[in-house]
């Protein structure tokens, strides 16, 4: 938050400064792990709090003819419920709470990151990787719980000559292991690249106008406005992509028909 202020000060223009994590409340480290409450934690807590408040407010007065808030809540519910029905089927509704929380958390983190002076939690690889690793572990556990050892058949492609089998099993295994990596890098890369780009164009505006070329600064400013719109789209889209891939992976673990 303070980082953005510095960057806009003009002299030390650093588009990466906005991603710095610094502690707000220093806490003692537990077993060598720093447990300080950072700006990252603050925005995560804010996101969770806002999701909770939003859903509670949306469902507090359930009218037959919904108001605006209730309508928004119901739309969010229906969006995820339809996604699960379409990709997994009715059995998938057991995992609705997890998928819905995942979607709302990522969406709110991305959207909060669009506020000026805010901090984008999802622009940190470790955050998105923790989310993706949770999904990965859930999918693996569900697969083994449903099919037992038979889940390993996922790594054995059918209709392949026996000589090629060991090679293909290893490739399948690696391909399975890349899932959390590509899932997390996709979200992280999109968020970080977008926010860096916005900062760079912001820096152009400041730089040009402080150099006395204010009329020229209109061009990067216009681009920045356009990119802000694009970033809003990406913030929503990436939350959607993350969630739908979770659905696809869960479907594979439940039905194993690929």
């Amino acid at each position, binding site marked *: 938050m303070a980082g953005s202020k510095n960057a806009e000060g003009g002299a030390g223009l650093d588009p990466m400064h906005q991603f710095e994590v610094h502690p707000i409340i220093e806490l003692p480290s537990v077993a060598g792990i720093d447990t300080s409450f950072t700006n990252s934690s603050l925005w995560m807590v804010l996101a969770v709090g806002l999701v909770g408040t939003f859903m509670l407010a949306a469902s507090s007065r359930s009218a037959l003819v919904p108001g605006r808030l209730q309508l928004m809540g119901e739309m969010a519910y229906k969006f995820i419920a339809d996604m699960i029905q379409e990709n997994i089927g009715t059995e998938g509704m057991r995992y609705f709470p997890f998928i819905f929380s995942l979607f709302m958390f990522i969406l709110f983190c991305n959207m909060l990151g669009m506020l000026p002076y805010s901090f984008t939690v999802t622009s940190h690889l470790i955050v998105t990787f923790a989310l993706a690793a949770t999904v990965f572990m859930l999918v693996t556990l569900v697969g083994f719980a449903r099919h037992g050892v038979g889940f390993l058949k996922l790594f054995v*492609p059918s209709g392949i000559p026996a000589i090629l089998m060991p*090679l293909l099993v*290893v*490739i*399948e295994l*690696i*391909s399975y*292991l*890349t899932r959390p*990596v*590509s899932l997390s*890098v*996709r979200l992280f*890369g*999109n968020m970080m690249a977008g926010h860096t780009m916005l900062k760079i164009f912001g820096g152009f505006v400041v730089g040009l106008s402080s150099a006395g070329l204010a009329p020229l600064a209109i061009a990067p400013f216009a681009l920045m406005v356009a990119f802000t719109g694009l970033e809003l789209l*990406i913030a929503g*889209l990436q939350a959607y992509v993350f969630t739908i891939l979770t659905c696809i992976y869960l479907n594979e673990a439940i039905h194993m028909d*690929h």
Partner: protein
Amino acid sequence: MLGLAYRFTVEMLAGIGVGGFVGWWMDKWFDTAPAFLLILLFLGMIAGVVNSVRTVNEMRRSLDKNAAGSAREPDQEE
């Protein structure tokens, strides 16, 4: 669409990254550097390409589903 190109880049890099990491880790485990690193790096590249091909097939399938009436030959199942 920039998003699509980005998706394939991530898919391929993830394959190489995971293959390299597993290979490096196995080399450390069995003390056989750099045999497993090289083998798994190569297999990781293949896995990355396999993943990309699957992504393309998925996209094509969903495109076909959306464009109703357009008759196309079914893709080979992976």
